[in-house]
Structures are given as C-alpha cells and as structure tokens.
C-alpha cells in the first residue's frame, strides 16, 4: 500500500512541476505587466495633485525589487526544472539534460511571448559573459585533471589552435562562395551582398567548440579520460583563438582593408592573448595561494578568496582583451595545489560545493535562456545559407580532426585510433558562446547569421548530443575506469615516474620526464616553501595521497559512528591485538594463539550479521598476516579485560589511523550533475563495497547477548572517540617527532570538525613530487 502510494506520488511530481512552471511563468508575466500598470498609475497620480489620496494600506511597489525578483524567479525556475528532470529517470537517460533545458526555454519563451508579446532580453551578452560563464569555467579549471591535460597538451593545442583556424577559414571561405553562387537579387536578403569579411567573421564565431555544451553532454557519457580531456581541453583553449579572430575580423570590417602587416599583427596578437591570459591567471593564482597561507585564523572567508581572485583574474583579462577563459583556467589550476594544502577541510568542501552549485545553475540558465532567446530573436530563415552552414561545419570538423590526427600521431606515443577520431569529431558541439558572440555583431546581416548560429547549436546539441551516447555504446569506445585509485597504483605511478626519468637520464636525452622532474624539484624547493604554510610544504605526494585516503575514511567512520559506537571501540581493540604480533614478529612467523573460546558456526553467523548491519565493512583483513580472528569472551572479566586492553591500545594511534583506511562508501552513480556535485571529475577514489583493497577486520562476538554487549561497549566507547586519542599516543608509538603529531592532530581536527559530505575525492596534485 505504502509503496504504491509513494510511486503514485512520485509520478504526480513531474506534473506538479509542470504546474509549478506554468504558475511561475504566469506570475512572471503578470508581475511584469503589473510593473507596466503601476508605472502608468504613477503618471495619472501626478496628474491630479489636488485630490488627496487615502493612506495606502496595501500597495504594490514592484519597481524597487523588480530586477532581483526576476532574477530569482529565473533561477528558481531553472532549479525546479533540474529537479523535475531527475524525477523522470527514463527521460534523463535518453535525452541529455541540455536538450531538455533548451526545450523548456523554448516553452517558457513561447508562453511569455504569447502572454505579453514580448520576451525579456535575458541572454544579453553582459549577463552571459560576466555572470553565467565564469562559474562554469572556474569549476572546470579548478578541477581540471592536470596530469592527463599536461600529458596531452600538444595534441590539445593542435586541435584548439590549428583546428579552430582551419574550421574558421574553411567555413567562412566556403560560405562566401556559396553565397556568391546562390545570390538572388530578388530575395529579401541578397546573399551576394555578404562580403568575405563578414563571412569569415561568421566562420570564426561558429567554428569554436563550446565548453559548456561539451561539459553538459560528455558528463553523461563517461567516456575514457583521454578522449574527455582532448575534447574538453580543446573547447577551453580555443577561446583564445576565437577571441583573436573575432576582434581581428571586426577590426578589419571597420577599416575595410586587410594588409599583410595586419595579418602578422593578428598572429602576434594571438600569442599575446593566449599567453597574456595565462600569465594573468597564474599571477592571480599565486596571489590567492599566498593569501591562503595566512588564513589560518580566519577560516571562514577562505573560500571567498578563491572565488574573488579567480573572478578578478577573469575580469582583468577581459579588460585587456585577453582570453578570460584561459586566465580563469590558469588561475584555478595554479592555485589549487597550494590552496588545498593551506585551507581547512571545511573550506575545501565549501569551495567544491559552491563551485558545483554555481556552475550547475549557470549551465541550466544558459540553456534555458538559449531557448528563450530563440523565440525572441528576429530570424531570417534562408534555406541555402543555413543548410550550407550546417554541412560545412560538419565537413570542416571531420576533415580537420582526421587531418590533424594524421599529423599528431607521428608525435604521440599512444596513437589516436579511428574510433577516437570519430568521437572527437562528433563531440565538437557548439553552444551559447557562439550565440552570444553572434549577438554582439554589428553587421547588417546579423539576423541571418544569428539564425544560422542557432540552427547549428540546436543541431549539435540535440542531434549530436542525443545520439552520442548510443554511438559510444555501439562503437564500444573505452569507458571511464570507475575503479578506485588504489594505493598500489599510486605507488607504482610514482615509481614509474622516477624510473622513466632515470632511464631518460641514462639514455642521455632530456625528454619531458626530465623536465617534469626538474619542475617538481624546483616546486618543492622554492615555491612550496613560499606558498604553503607550516610543515605541509614538505609532504610528498604519496604521503599526501595516503593521508587523504585515511582522513576520508576517518570522516566516514565518524559519520557512521552514529549507527554504532561499536565501530570505534572494537576495531581498535581487535586491530591492536591483531597487529601487535605482526609488529613483533615478521610475517613469516606463525602468530601466537589466543586462549579464547571458539564459537559455534551458527552463533558466529548471527553475530556477523549483527555486526554487518552496524559496521560499514566487515571484510577479512588481517587474516593474511595473522591467522586468528579475535574472539571476545562475553563474561564480565572478559569485558573488563577488554576495556583495559582497549585503553592501552588506544595509545597506539597509528594503527588506529590505519584502520580508518578500510571503510567503503557505496558508490551511487546518479545523474551527471549529481556525480559532478559529489565527486570532481575523477575516478580516483570511488570506493565500492566489495572493492578490493579494503582490508578490514573480522570480529566475532562470542556472546549470545550480543545486543547487550554492543550496548555495553557503546557506553564504554562513548567517551573515548576513536580519533581523539591521536595526539597523546603518537609520541609513544613512533618517534616521528613532535611536529608530526601536531600536524596529525591538526589534520585530524581539521577533518573532524566537519564531517562534511561523503565523498571527497581529489585529482592528482598538479605537480607531483
């Protein structure tokens, strides 16, 4: 009964959504018309000054709050839409979110137009470039997987620069040819009037792959990291090319002449735009890192620094007509390793969640506005022009990708296969950036250009967006490894780095491993000392990785601690006792037996069952090194002994920390946005139950009154939380020095003060040691 009622409720929720949507839109409409009405009222009021109006008990003062009110309405609409889509699972599997959002935008635009015969100009370029785009780019830049990005930087640059140039000139040039061929002096807009420069300008706008659209679609298809980073990196870096080409052609159109000098200047300008953007971003990134070094007393505003410096980087770059996107990416990527070493765990979580939230809302708004603006704009549909544009774009992309891959494969170790090339070509989606740039045009042919741009955008987002997922399945393209980044893999990654550097040295040539190594050493020796506070600067990456893993699991353990204090008390005790012999004797020795009574199989099972529901993991662990499972005696002396032992064991904190390694978190795939909010684009640490590499302890409670014993231990374990014992015990166990303890203490406090969200995965730190 209950379930059926629930499902029917859920089914009605999308209908509720639609209802809500209609209400919102009507509200919007009425509110806006009220605004018009109230303004007219004021005029009439001023007319008869003589009659005294009664004191207005209730009035409508919409003017003052109109702008924020409307903004909030739109954002609310966007968020509700997002909510609605994920309640309809089948729909979101088939149709990518971007398509749905554009459709909603179209719907809303249509309703507004019908209601008021006018649509608010929502996708103005200022709003887009200053408010909607930066969060998305910052999110992408901050969580950019640096290692694959840098490894493939050559390929990415080739695609971004040469590919975009090729696209622009090919499309621009050929569309001019088509226009000339198809000119019809008697049609409304004579195609033949479109000069070569406007065509080239149009080509440059439409040739750029759009990061927003790529992110939106690729997020859902989970292809392997290489392809993802290639297409995504290209979409980010081609901004520089687009900016330069756009301004170049605009200038040329103003002046009317093109000379060779101008062309060379254009090239120079490209270098300046790209490198300048990166430098500006890096500068702000270093500033942010440096500032974060001193924020240990004002943890609350740490995220603010990150956001402000990044936004300033973007705006500063825009001031000088440099590439704002590249500046933002550089800022995020540069500041991340240092800032993360300095800020508290809470701030880290805040930054992550705010970025994800803003970028998510931005993206939704962009797509909705795209739909609305489509309804609004003045269009001129010219079959020839538009179909020619579409075909040329596709052809140009394919030729470009194939040609470039042919050249690039000579320099790559891991060559790009045909399948890869297809996905790269197919993934070249256009999006809102092209639209906004088109909006900014001043030419006479703006209408036809805009229509063509919108058509291409719609085509790529709808057709290519919807079909790419089945195509990926069909072609059996390698998908993303969802495996957890195990500690063995991490060790071997480091090992391989050093090995390859060594072999390069022996070979005698300075390959990129050598330079990478030099950069790392420089970073460690100088940069980290300046930018990272305290002792964290010395921590090599392997240790950092290990500690992160531990902290994550400690947090999870604390979070789950509500379920059973058993967690905290038993593992430690058991681990102590199990590890003690290991420390004392090498694994080759047979460990001593424990004189404790054995259990019957049935009882064991029962108890195991109880424990499983309480503990998050009950996997076999030290069986490998210690052949006995600890069996606890249920009688009173047993318990007292246990408690005493526990108190002693608590002092061996290192192994407690080690225990916290071995918790798993159920990994729920969820929707792309959910997975984006949960984990940054990384497969590094999905920890699935049942995954390998999660050693754990098997505890057999030999007690018929297991619930009671659990409760008793609950009380016992209550005041001594697992993790609190850290500072006191470290000194006894290991002689790593006082500084370590403080740091560990601080680290643990940092992470304990905020249980935070469940998954806290990280990319590689950009500059591994």
């Amino acid at each position: 009964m209950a379930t059926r009622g629930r499902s029917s409720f859920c089914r009605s929720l999308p209908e509720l959504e639609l209802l809500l949507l209609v209400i919102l839109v009507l509200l919007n409409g009425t509110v806006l018309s009220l605004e018009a009405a109230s303004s007219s009222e004021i005029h009439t009021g001023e007319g008869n000054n003589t009659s005294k109006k009664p004191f207005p008990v209730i009035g409508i003062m919409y003017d003052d709050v109109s702008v924020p009110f409307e903004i909030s309405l739109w954002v609310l609409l966007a968020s509700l839409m997002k909510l609605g889509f994920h309640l309809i699972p089948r729909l979101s599997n088939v149709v990518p979110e971007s398509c749905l959002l554009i459709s909603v935008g179209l719907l809303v635009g249509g309703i507004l137009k019908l209601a008021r015969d006018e649509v608010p100009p929502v996708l103005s370029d200022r709003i887009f470039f200053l408010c909607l785009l930066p969060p998305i780019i910052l999110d992408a830049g901050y969580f950019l997987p640096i290692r694959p990005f840098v490894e493939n930087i050559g390929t990415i640059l080739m695609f971004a620069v040469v590919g975009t140039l090729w696209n622009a000139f090919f499309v621009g040039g050929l569309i001019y040819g088509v226009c000339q061929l198809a000119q019809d002096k008697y049609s409304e807009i004579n195609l033949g009037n479109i000069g070569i420069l406007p065509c080239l300008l149009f080509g440059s706008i439409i040739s750029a792959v759009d990061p927003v659209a790529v992110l939106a679609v690729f997020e859902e298809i989970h292809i392997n990291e290489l392809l993802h980073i290639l297409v995504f990196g290209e979409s980010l870096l081609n901004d520089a090319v687009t900016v330069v080409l756009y301004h170049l052609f605009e200038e040329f159109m103003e002046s009317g002449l093109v000379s060779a000098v101008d062309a060379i200047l254009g090239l120079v300008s490209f270098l300046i735009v790209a490198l300048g953007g990166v430098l500006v971003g890096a500068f702000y990134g270093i500033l942010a890192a440096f500032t974060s070094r001193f924020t240990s007393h004002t943890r609350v505003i740490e995220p603010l620094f990150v956001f402000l410096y990044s936004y300033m980087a973007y705006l500063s770059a825009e001031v000088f007509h440099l590439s704002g996107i590249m500046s933002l990416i550089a800022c995020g990527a540069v500041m991340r390793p240092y800032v993360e070493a300095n800020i508290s765990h809470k701030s880290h979580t805040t930054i992550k969640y705010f970025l994800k939230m803003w970028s998510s809302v931005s993206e939704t708004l962009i797509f909705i506005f795209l739909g609305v603006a489509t309804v609004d704009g003045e269009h001129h549909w010219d079959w020839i022009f538009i179909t020619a544009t579409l075909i040329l774009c596709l052809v140009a992309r394919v030729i470009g990708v194939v040609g470039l891959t042919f050249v690039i494969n000579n320099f790559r170790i891991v060559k790009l296969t045909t399948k890869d090339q297809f996905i790269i070509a197919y993934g070249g989606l256009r999006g809102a950036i092209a639209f906004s740039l088109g909006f900014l045009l001043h030419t006479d042919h703006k209408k036809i250009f805009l229509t063509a741009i919108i058509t291409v955008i719609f085509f790529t987002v709808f057709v290519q967006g919807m079909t790419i997922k089945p195509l990926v399945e069909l072609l059996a393209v390698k998908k993303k490894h969802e495996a957890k980044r195990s500690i063995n893999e991490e060790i071997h990654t480091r090992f391989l780095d050093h090995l390859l550097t060594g072999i390069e040295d022996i070979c005698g040539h300075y390959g990129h491993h050598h330079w990478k190594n030099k950069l790392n050493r420089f970073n460690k020796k100088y940069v980290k000392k300046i930018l990272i506070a305290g002792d964290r600067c010395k921590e090599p990456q392997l240790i950092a990785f290990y500690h992160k893993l531990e902290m994550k699991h400690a947090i999870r353990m604390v979070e789950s601690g509500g379920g059973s204090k058993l967690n905290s008390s038993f593992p430690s005790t058991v681990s102590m006792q199990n590890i003690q012999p290991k420390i004392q004797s090498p694994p080759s020795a047979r460990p001593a037996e424990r004189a404790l009574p054995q259990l019957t199989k049935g009882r064991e099972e029962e108890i195991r069952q109880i424990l499983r529901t309480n503990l998050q993991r009950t996997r076999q662990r030290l069986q490998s090194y210690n052949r006995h499972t600890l069996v606890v005696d249920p009688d009173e002396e047993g318990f007292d002994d246990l408690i005493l032992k526990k108190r002693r064991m608590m002092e061996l904190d290192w192994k407690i920390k080690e225990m916290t390694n071995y918790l798993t978190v159920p990994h729920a795939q969820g929707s792309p946005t959910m997975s984006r909010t949960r984990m940054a684009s990384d497969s590094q640490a999905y920890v699935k139950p049942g995954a390998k590499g999660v050693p754990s302890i098997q505890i057999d409670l030999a007690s018929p009154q297991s619930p009671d014993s659990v409760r008793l231990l609950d009380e016992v374990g209550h005041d001594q939380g697992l993790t609190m014992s850290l500072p006191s015990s470290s000194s006894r166990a290991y002689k790593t020095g006082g500084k370590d303890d403080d740091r560990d203490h601080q680290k643990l406090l940092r992470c304990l003060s905020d249980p935070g969200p469940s998954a806290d995965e990280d990319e590689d730190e950009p500059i591994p040691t």
Partner: protein
Amino acid sequence: MGALKSTPDPIEYADLSEKTGFSLKQIRVLHKRFRELSDGDDVLRREHLRCISSLKYNPIRVEIIEAFFNRRNFSPSHQGSADEIGFEEFLVVMSHFRPPSPKITDEQRKNIRREKLQFIFNMHDSDGDGLVTLEDYRHVVEELLSRSGALGKETARAIADAAMFEVARTVGHKDPNEFYEGITFEHFLKLLSNFDIESRMNIRFLKSDVNPFCQLCC
C-alpha cells in the same frame, strides 16, 4: 657476453634490431651513448652508471642501476646478476621501454604488458626468488619517500603495509589459515590490471643524435 666490435657493423645492428625492435638509427644513437657511458669500453659497469650526475636525485637509482645488471631482464630463463654488460644486454633492457606500435593484436599487447610488468617486478624483487615480500615492498616505498626526510620512515611502513593488505585482499585470501608470503608475479599482474602500463612505461627514443648536454661527472 657478446662483446661487440668497437666500430659499428650494420650486420650486427640488423640482428639487434630484429631482436629488440629498435630501428637502426635508434640503435646507432644508443650505441653512441653506450660508448659515452662506458668510456669507450665495450662493457658497462655499475660505476659507469653511477657516474651520471642527473641520476643523483633519483630516489630509486640503485634499483634502476641494478636492473641493468639483472640477468632476468636479459631473458626470462637467466638468473642472478652480472657485473658487467655489453651493448646487446643494454639494448635488451632499453627495449622494455619501447612504445608499442599502434597496430598490434590483443595477444601482443598482453605480452608486451607482461614484459613490462615483469621488468618492474624484477626491480622490486631484489633477491630474485620470484616473490615480493613485505620487506621488499617496504624497501620500495621507503626509497620512494626517501627524499622527503625523516617524516617518511614510519609513514612508509604504514603505506607499504596498507598496500600489502590490498594485494592480499585482491588475490582473494579468504582462508584465514593461509599465510601470505609475498606477491608472486601472477598476483602482481592482477593487482595492476587497471594500470595501463603499456601506454605509460615508454620513452621516446631519438632517431638522431642529440647534443651532449647530459654531463657525466667522471
């Protein structure tokens, strides 16, 4: 073993090229480097490799140098280690780092993977008994962290322990009475099954001479 004539002989190069897969140009370059390293000798000794100054900063340089003299890397059936190697052995060791050609079958890819992983396994397994014990692994991690000073020691132990547990877990040690001595090569393969080593463990070998920036200190 197989000392070569001091002047390059195209016929022998062709043999080597077939055996190791390098192109003739690459072999020529590598031979030149070999002679540079060995001071004109026909055989290379450990001291020669220790002389390379840029290796000084490498935390695992001892293992790398050892790998050149480990007979198991010359061919699977050999055992023990040599004191000096000739150019052929040098090439064979280097060939482990050759990138695989793009059009290879799955079978070939698996073989290449095995070879590369075997190389790394041999580097871990210092006593050559075919097992990487906890001590061996601890040593590896300690070396990796050796450049980071004192704080590495205990963490290294903890990390190595955690890693060994993971291995044991991966190979499915469910039997509590089974004693886990160490990682065998098969376990090692299974452990790194997600690690795409065939595309990562590669060096770009030059086809033409390179300027001698890389100084030797002696």
